[in-house]
Structure formats: C-alpha cells, structure tokens
C-alpha cells in the first residue's frame, strides 16, 4: 500500500471524466529563507502529465507560483469506470515518478 505523492479523484460524468488531482508537495520557491537567513533551495513539481489508454489527456508545466500541495482539475471526453489513469510528475531536482489512479 505504498502511496506516492499524488491523490486523484476521477469520476465519470456523462460522456466525460472529471479529474481532480492534488500532490503532497511543499512547492518550495527558492525565494524563502530559513530561520538562520539561508535561502531554502527551490524544490517544486515542474511537470505533471496525465494519460488515459496511452493518450495524454493533460500536461501541466508548473512554476513556483503554484501553491503548496498543487491542485489540478480538468475534464476529458471519454473514460470508463474502473479504468486507470497514469500520472507522471517531475520535480525541478530531477526526481520523477508515475502513479496511477482508478476512475470511479
């Protein structure tokens, strides 16, 4: 039950699938200083792409102006209950992972 940083709620609504995703991430801007006055290095999610059945349905590039615990909601045509979404994120540090979520 190892969980990644992404949580998704994907629901079929009529002919469409509504997807809401939140990432557990501080989105450190690189502009902040710690208590001793040193700059906290930037560490944020740069890209998040979602695909369904091998087709990309959303691709997001994010900057430091995205809030902590980034949230994204969008809707695509199609999708079926029980199918999986693939969600791939990359960080500015180079870290990256692909996680999945079931459409409900």
């Amino acid at each position: 039950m190892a969980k990644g940083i992404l949580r998704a709620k994907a629901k079929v609504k009529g002919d469409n699938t509504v997807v809401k995703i939140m990432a557990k991430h501080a989105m450190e801007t690189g502009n902040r200083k710690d208590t001793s006055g040193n700059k906290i290095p930037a560490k944020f999610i740069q890209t998040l792409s979602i695909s369904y059945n091998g087709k990309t349905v959303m691709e997001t590039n994010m900057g430091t102006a995205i809030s902590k615990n980034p949230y994204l909601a969008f809707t695509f045509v199609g999708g079926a209950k029980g199918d999986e979404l693939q969600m791939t994120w990359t960080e500015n540090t180079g870290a990256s992972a692909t996680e999945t979520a079931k459409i409900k």
Partner: protein
Amino acid sequence: MMNRRSVLKAVFTGGLVAGMGVLMPRVAMAAWSKAAFEAGSQEAAMGALYSTNPSASAEVTLKAPDIAENGAVVPVSVKSSLAGVTSIALFVANNPQPLAAQFTIPEGTLANVSCRIRMGKTSDVTAVVTTASGVFSASKEVKVTIGGCGG
C-alpha cells in the same frame, strides 16, 4: 528559445489535426520553458511563449476571487468557448516569476482547468488561451490583503 517557439508553432498549426499526432505533441508538451518560467516580468514570460501579444477575448473566462482569502492559496479556473484550444497559461503580473502554470490541452480534453496559485501581493491575474487562430486572454485583479489574525 527559437527552437521552442518553432516547435510550439508547429503544434499550434497542427492543433486541429491532433489526435492522430499523439506522439508529436507530446514532445512539445513536455518542454518546461526555463526562459518563460524564470522570467522576472510578465512581458518577458509572454515573449518567451508567444510570438504575438495576446488579445483580450470575452470567450476566455477567468474565475478568481476579488479578494483572496489567503495569497498562499488562491483558487483559479480558466475556461474558454473558443474552438481548438491547445493550451492555457496563467500569469500573476506582480509575482517574482509571473508565469504560474501552463496547461497543454490535447484534443478530447475540455478547455476548462482549475488550480491554486500563490500571490505575493495584489496583482492582475491573466489567463492566456492559445488556439489555432491566435492567442487570447482575460485578466482580473485579485487583491491580496494582510490579515489581522496572524495567529
């Protein structure tokens, strides 16, 4: 940067035939533009992404609060009734790095996205929508206030 632009242009012109070009747009979509995201002014950020200045359009709807409850988490959504939207971008003019996010909209995905942005202070927020026929925008001022209840 020229490279990036020409790729984008290729995507824009090819936008309407997308769907079969699944692999081609993926390449363009994946590019995170350092020049645009690290630009210190909205003008520079837009210059890095678009070859023309966006023109204001009533068919772009930007939903954002008049007064943000908290500048750290400002819910924003953008939708557009324009045909063939290929991307949506969000700018916060007065942020140190104005470009907040860029959403690539493949065919089959609605031109309707929501996210939450950070705002350092009161600023215009601008949504820019790209379609095959041009670049369109909508702006709104969002006030960020200093609360009395710091706690």
